[in-house]
Every structure is written in C-alpha cells, then in structure tokens.
C-alpha cells in the first residue's frame, strides 16, 4: 500500500485529536468525580441513577418528617408529663384540704390551686416553634386554643380535631399521625373528664371549703390522671414507631447511596492511572509525528 503525503499527515492528526479527546474526558471525570457524565454514556445506568436519586430524595423527606414528628411528640410528651404532675399536685392539695382543714394552711392551699389552674391552662396552650401543640390543625390566632372563663369555669376550645399526618415511608401504611388534639386530651365541654374545668371546680371547692365537692373532685381527677396516662402511652407507641422507621430509613439510605456511587462515582485512583496511560500514549503520538515529519528523502540526497 502506498502511503500518500496527505494521508499520513491526516492520520497523525486524527491520532492526536483522538487521544486529546480521551484525555479531556478522563480529566472531566476526575474533576467532577463522576463517570456517568451524560445519559448517552450508559442509558440504563443513567435511568437507574435517576431512580436512586429520587429514592434518596424521598428518604430525606421521610427523615425530615420523622424528625419533625419526633420533636413534636417529645414536646407533647413533656407537656403531658407536666399535666400529670399538676393533676397529682391538685389531688394532694385536695386530700390535704379534706383531711386536716387547718385554717392556716387554707390560704396556701387556695394559692396552690390557683397556680395549678393557671399552669394547666398554660399546658393546654403550649407551643412548639410558635405553633400550638393542642389545637389540631387549626391555628386559632389571635385567640388561644383554650379559654377558661374564670367566673363560670366554662372551657372554650378554639381548635379542631384535625390530625397532623406526615408521610414517613413508602407503601400503604405510610402516613403517621404525630399530634394529639386538644379535644381528645383535655375533653373541653365534656360532662366528665374536662380536665381544665375539673381543676377549676377543685379550686372553687377548696376556696369555699366545700368538703363534699372536694371529695368528688378527687375521684374525678383520678379518672383524668388515668386518661392523661393513656394518652401518653398512645404517644409513646407512636414515638417508638417513628424511631423504628427512622432506623430502617437510615439503613435504606446507606444502601442506596452505595449503589448510586457504584453507578455514578468515578474511582479517582483508577481514573488517574488511566489518564497517565493516555498521557504516555499521547506523548508517543507527538514524538512519532515529530520523527516522521523529519523523514524526507531530500535529506539523504
């Protein structure tokens, strides 16, 4: 085969161009840390990578939701704990009032009860980051969720019975309720179990030294204490469920990240070795070009 002048020039230029392109590609991979630069590199892997990224994104959302649910639940539990303590204290005061009605202690008992009613209302209107814990979904601003008429003991609830639902996973059972609404915790307006009203009634009974009413309040407060305890256990089950989901998601995320990096991430060490190989080959092409260009019959005549 004859090698023409134009041909040998062209094929050397083609070689140099080709090597430069490969080097450019490799250095882009190293710089970006990715071996999958465009869908055309590997259409199937690209689609899988997109799927994994979507999965990771939703896991992140679930984790955010769970984190929110956990802090909401923990705050709710804290407030319910306080409520139990308040009811317990109220009961103690009531028992003390019934058993030894010493006039000197009476004013202290009334004072204690007044503080407990105030604190109870404060618990009912507790907030987390500016949101009321026990108002359902409604934000009753400018009113507070609970209002207690100090003269009549009437409790008004401005919230609703909405459930704060969050998505905490895939599939059918993917919605978790994270709140307890004021209706189910404090039972405002109910004939029995209206906690705020019961505290108020006890205060009035202690104030009036009405022993029968005080005794009655003790037994109904016992019921309320049990109700709060049952609400706390509902909450505890939810919290442990959320924690379980959180753990499972952590494992899933790790697995997906691993698969994604397997599909997408460039192995820097390998890429650098390959780049060095290309560099050597490129230098060889340049050297050959220089050598061949010097070859001319004229030099030997």
């Amino acid at each position, binding site marked *: *085969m*004859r*090698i*023409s*002048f*134009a*041909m040998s*020039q*062209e*094929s050397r230029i*083609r070689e140099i161009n080709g090597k430069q392109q490969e080097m450019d590609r490799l250095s882009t991979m190293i710089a970006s840390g990715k071996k*999958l630069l*465009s*869908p*055309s*590199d*590997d*259409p*199937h892997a*690209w*689609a899988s*990578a*997109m*799927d994994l*990224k*979507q999965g990771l*994104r*939703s896991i992140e*959302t679930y984790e*955010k*939701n769970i984190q*929110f649910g956990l802090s909401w639940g923990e705050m709710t539990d804290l407030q319910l704990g306080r409520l139990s303590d308040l009811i317990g204290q109220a009961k103690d005061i009531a028992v003390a009032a019934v058993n030894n009605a010493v006039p000197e202690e009476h004013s202290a008992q009334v004072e204690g009860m007044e503080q407990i009613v105030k604190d109870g209302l404060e618990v009912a209107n507790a907030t987390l980051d500016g*949101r009321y814990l026990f108002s*359902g*979904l*409604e*934000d009753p601003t400018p009113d507070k969720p609970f209002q207690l008429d100090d003269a009549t003991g009437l409790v008004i609830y401005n919230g*609703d019975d*909405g459930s*704060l*639902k*969050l*998505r905490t996973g*895939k*599939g059918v059972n*993917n*919605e978790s309720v994270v709140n307890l609404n004021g209706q189910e915790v404090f039972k405002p307006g109910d004939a029995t179990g209206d906690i705020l009203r019961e505290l108020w009634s006890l205060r009035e009974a202690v104030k009036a030294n009405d022993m029968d009413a005080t005794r009655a309040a003790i037994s109904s407060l016992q019921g309320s204490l049990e109700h709060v305890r049952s609400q706390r256990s509902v909450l505890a089950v939810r919290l442990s469920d959320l924690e379980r989901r959180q753990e499972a998601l952590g494992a899933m995320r790790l697995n997906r990240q691993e698969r994604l990096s397997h599909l997408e991430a460039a192995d820097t060490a390998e890429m650098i070795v390959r780049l060095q190989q290309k560099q050597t080959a490129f230098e060889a092409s340049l050297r050959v070009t220089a050598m061949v260009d010097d070859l*001319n*019959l*004229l030099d030997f*005549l």
Partner: protein
Amino acid sequence: MPGLSLTLETAKSTLLNTQVQIQVNSHNIANAENKSYARQKAILGTSPANLTHAGWIGTGATIETIVQMRDAYIEQKLMNSMSAESHQNTLATQLSIALAGFSDSGETGISQALGAFWDSWDALLQDPEDIAAREGVYLASRNLSQNIRTTYADLDVLVNSQISEEIQETIDKANSLLDRIANLNHQIQQNESPGHYANDLRDSRYQALKELAEIMPIQYGEEANGSVTVRYSNGTVSVTLVSGPQASPSPLHYDTVSEEVTLTSFDGGTSAAEESVQGGILGGLTAAREDIQAYMDRLNAFAGTLIDEVNGAYGSPVFTGSDARDVDISPDFLDGPTAAELSERALQISNLQEKKVSFGTGGVDARFIDFLGGIQSRMGGDLQEAETQAEFYATLRTELDGQQQSISGVSLDEEMVDLLKHQQIYQAAAKIIQQTLEMLNRILDIR
C-alpha cells in the same frame, strides 16, 4: 535516415519528454496535500522505428498521454461511507444538543424541579397554615411548570427553526453542487479529446461529488464522453439528478409546511417526494427531527398526565393548560381550602410520587420520575447508537480513504525518486548530445 542527426533528434525529444515528466512531478508535489487531487503520470510510448539496411532502428520515445490514477469503484464506496458517516455525525450532534437541554441527572432541570415540587407538599403537611410552606408550594409549582415549558420550547425551537433552517441551507448547497457538477461535465466534454484528459477539471468534479456525498447518498457513473451521471436511489425511488451538462434548476426542493424534500430529475421528467433521505447530512437532520419530535410527544404526555393527576388529587386546578406547551399554575390555588382540607390534599398529592400512572403512550404504568428517566434514557440510547454508528462509519471511511489515497494520493518520496530518475535520463540525453556534437566536430575538423 539513420545517422548522427537522428541521434541528436532522439536525444532532443528525450530532453523535452523528461521536462514534461518533471513538470508532472512538480504538479503532483504542488498538490500533495489536496485529497481531491489524483496523482498524474505522463505515459511514454516508443516512437515509430525507421527501416534501414540494418533493420528497424528505434527513434526514441514520445509522451502519449497524461493520466490520473483513479479507481472509480473505491471512490464510489468511499462516498457511500462518507454519506453514512455524515448522517450519523449530524444525528449525534443534533441529539446531543437536545439532550443537553433535557438531561439533568436529578440536580438541575425538570427532575430536580419535580423533586422540589413533591417536597414542598410534604413541607406543607407539617404545617398547613404556615405562610412560608404555602409560598414554598406555590414557588415549587411555578418552577416546575416553567421548567417543563422552557424545556419543551427549547426542543421546539431546535426542531422547528434551527433544524428546518439547516435543512434549507443544506438543500441550497446540494443544489449548487449539482449545478457545478453539470457545469464541469460540460467543460470536461468540451476540453477532452481522445487521449487528452482534462485531469484538473476532473479533480474539481471529484471534489464536488465528495461534498455532495456528505450531504446525501449518491450513485454516479462515468459515461464514454467523460461526463458523470449522478443518481439518487434508495430502493423505492430512483432519480437521475445530473446527466451530462444537464440538471434541473433546483433539483432538490424543501417544503417547509409538509416538511418534505422533493427530488426532480435533470430533465424535469420524474420527481419523487422523499420524506426521509437516508444518509448524508440531510438524512441526519431529518432523522434528528423525527427523534426529537418523539421526545417532545413524550414530554407532552408527561406534562398532561402530571396536570391531570395533580389537579385530580387536589380537587381543583393547581395547574392550568393541557400539555408541556402551555402548562402553568393556576393563581391563588392555595386560597380557599381550610387547614384540614389542605392537609388531606397535600397528602394526596405527595403520595402521587410513588403512584404508578398511565401516560397514554403505551407500555406499562410508571411513576412520574421513572417516566422522566425513561425519556432521558431513550434520548441517551439514541445518541449512544448514533455515536457508535458514526464511529463505525468513520473507521470504514478512514479505511476506504486510505485505499483511495493509496491509488490516487501523492507520495513525496515517490515523486522524489521519479524526479531523480528523470534527472538522470535528462543528464544521459544531454551527454549523448555532447558526445554527438564532439563527433560531428571531429568530422568537420578533417580537411
């Protein structure tokens, strides 16, 4: 009559012959880098001999003709491979432009906007009455609809103006090349006589044929009078575009409305509508247009289904419009519903991201992100295919180019050796003249 004067004559013609040969060498060297140039060679023939009492005496050599080194078979194959390569190259270029605007790996573009859209509804779920969360939903919805619209519009511009314009320009170029080939045919016929080839005009014509082969696949054959006949045929239609000096005033015509290319034969006799020329830049452009149109249809299916599903889940319009062309958000869609309603609807919408829905394009039901990934994966597959094919044809073209150059290309070393050879012959002939003159002088010196 044999004698010293005949020797002088023979040596003189040798001097003249070698000068012509050296000029041919020089012409070859001057065109060494031009790949359309075919190396030329002066063919020597023995001059007629004289009959003397001693028998037939030779009278030297004459240059019979100057020929080009060409192989029509290899050249036709080379042009076929050039058509195929430029088809795939053009297709790959256009597809990579389309892909650059569409693909996003989930960090930018539509799939990122879609992810942010789903996330915004989840954030709203945490606090349905929060102004920031509502604003987030509003912005994410607007961003998503904008993203879909601009991606579609970019593809639309690519297909309906850029590619269309390029097809028009390519056709104009093909028409002027066909005209040039017909003209060169005419000039070659005028300038050639038996044994005298218009080599340099043939080089120009070869160059024009090569340029035409890049645009569209052609078949050509040389006639006895030196002209070439250029045909386009693809199995179903066969149109003779150039015959001798004749070609239609505009052999190719592109109808911008029907998006069809019409081919007219040299005498205006036959014409054929060719929807997709297979091969060449023209073929690549039409194939790219079809592919991108298909992606746009899929994007429309995606947008249409998204609009329907989201609006259905929300109960009232979140998005307006019907497809990717006109999708937009419905203003104030967040006003109205109560906190409880909003919470329920946000849950419905957020759950859509895991729902498998039908996109009405055939195939199985898929999640939104999978369908989007499917479009990208398909685009990537098409591009990969075009790139692989282009690489294959480039290798084939290089191989055939090598073969063609092996026959027609100029090798400087070879020319140099020829030059030396002719120089030696020239010197030898000059020596003969010198010697003959000395002999003649010797005779004249006798008195």
